[in-house]
């Protein structure tokens, strides 16, 4: 039985260091839910999700960093909140897709609690930060008993709410590459109401040389079991100038690459209908 107010009992573990957290996870593996901001874990627990152990990262010092370096790029620690990322001027300037996905996420209060890394790790197909990060490119740093490893965001989302993270690993940070001149990113989403989860979202990264697009990454969310790269659409953009003609081809190709479903937030038919237009708009915004 689940109640909206009362959570089932569990054992709470409060590691004081990353190595202690790794030990605890190695011991309890999939029996443990890792909690950063708590906005996902606590709400799912009031709805019947049960984990015998909850490992909170709240008392591990110095995990709440957002650091930017022109040559090294952006690093976001596991406890850095959406609001911290939204309040970092270097993010707004250099990573507009990520900035927007954090700044419009949830409510002002939940942005003070929820973390970017947690948003990625939840691996919801409609996750906004995951969509923006996949378009921008980057990696998730995982730490386990055998040490650290870095997984490209392209290989991170495996299936509906399944990631490349092994049960004994925890995500320490997300890295984004430095942005070259001519690289632009953008993110957009559609919701039923302002504070809703996305019914569809999309993000792009375009590496421009003058008017020609050298490389493109086009990503959509809530149109497949995972956040999805649209490779045919990317191929259309690569080597082309962003003209009305190319954008019309893009808008026609996007719906052929996605496999949306009917759910409470939208229908498969609607999602397919709007997907091309949404991607077209995100490309236009990135090129501004």
């Amino acid at each position: 039985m689940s109640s909206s107010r009362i959570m089932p009992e569990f054992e709470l573990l409060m590691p004081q260091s990353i190595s202690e957290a790794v030990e605890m996870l190695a011991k309890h593996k999939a029996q443990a839910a890792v909690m950063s901001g708590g906005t996902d874990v606590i709400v799912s627990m009031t709805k019947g999700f049960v984990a015998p152990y909850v490992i909170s990262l709240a008392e591990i010092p110095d995990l709440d960093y957002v650091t930017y370096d022109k040559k090294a790029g952006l690093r976001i620690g596991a406890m850095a909140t959406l609001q911290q990322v939204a309040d970092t001027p270097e993010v707004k300037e250099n990573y507009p897709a990520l900035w927007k996905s954090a700044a419009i996420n949830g409510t002002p209060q939940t942005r003070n609690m929820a973390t970017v890394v947690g948003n990625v790790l939840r691996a919801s197909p409609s996750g906004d930060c995951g969509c923006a990060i996949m378009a921008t490119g980057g990696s998730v740093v995982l730490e386990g008993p055998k040490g650290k490893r870095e997984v490209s965001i392209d290989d991170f989302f495996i299936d509906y709410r399944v990631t490349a993270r092994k049960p004994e690993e925890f995500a320490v940070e997300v890295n984004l590459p430095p942005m070259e001149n001519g690289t632009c990113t953008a993110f957009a989403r559609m919701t039923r109401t302002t504070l809703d989860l996305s019914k569809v979202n999309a993000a792009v990264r375009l590496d421009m040389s003058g008017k020609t697009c050298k490389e493109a990454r086009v990503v959509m969310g809530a149109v497949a079991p995972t956040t999805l790269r649209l490779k045919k659409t990317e191929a259309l953009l690569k080597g082309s100038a962003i003209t009305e003609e190319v954008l019309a081809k893009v808008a026609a190709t996007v719906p052929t690459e996605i496999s949306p479903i009917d759910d409470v937030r939208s229908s498969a038919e609607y999602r397919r209908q709007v997907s091309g237009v949404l991607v077209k708009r995100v490309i236009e915004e990135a090129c501004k």
Partner: protein
Amino acid sequence: MKKRAITLYINGEEFNLNVPVHYTLLQVIRDQLNLMDVKYGCGRGECGACTVLVDDDKIVCHDTDKTTKYCEAKRGGRKAILACMTLAATMDGKRLTTVAGLDQDGKLHPVQEAFVEESAIQCGFCTPGMVLKGVAILEKNPKPTEQEIRKELEGNICRCTGYVKIVKAVEVARDRMATAKK
């Protein structure tokens, strides 16, 4: 039932508690401490009725020499969080403010005063969260525009739909606090 010993500072008062680890901060504040000014609305982060302010403190340590370390609490602003989505056991040592702790020397906070004067209250259920969020807005940005105030109040729902007066009240408080500073 698993419990954890924690200390909370609520409105300046110290509470040494033994909290069940699966209790939310809201359960502890309302059911254990009987502080009823923090409201339970939706339980899922949509309504803002259970908003509390938490001091955004950081312990910053400097090495003075090789053997000793000097640590100090660096005081950040107060930020608004939701008590219904926070585990109480993870809040050890935190300083919290609820609406009952906003007054200073028996005088209402300018945001509270403005809510009274502008009649920005109908049934009153959302009021504690609205007032606290209003305070958080003005502590972070003393000069928000009306649009910025509306945007920042997005996470607080008023079922009486008295938003116009609530936004006005925050604007009145903004202007009064700016004048008081001069």
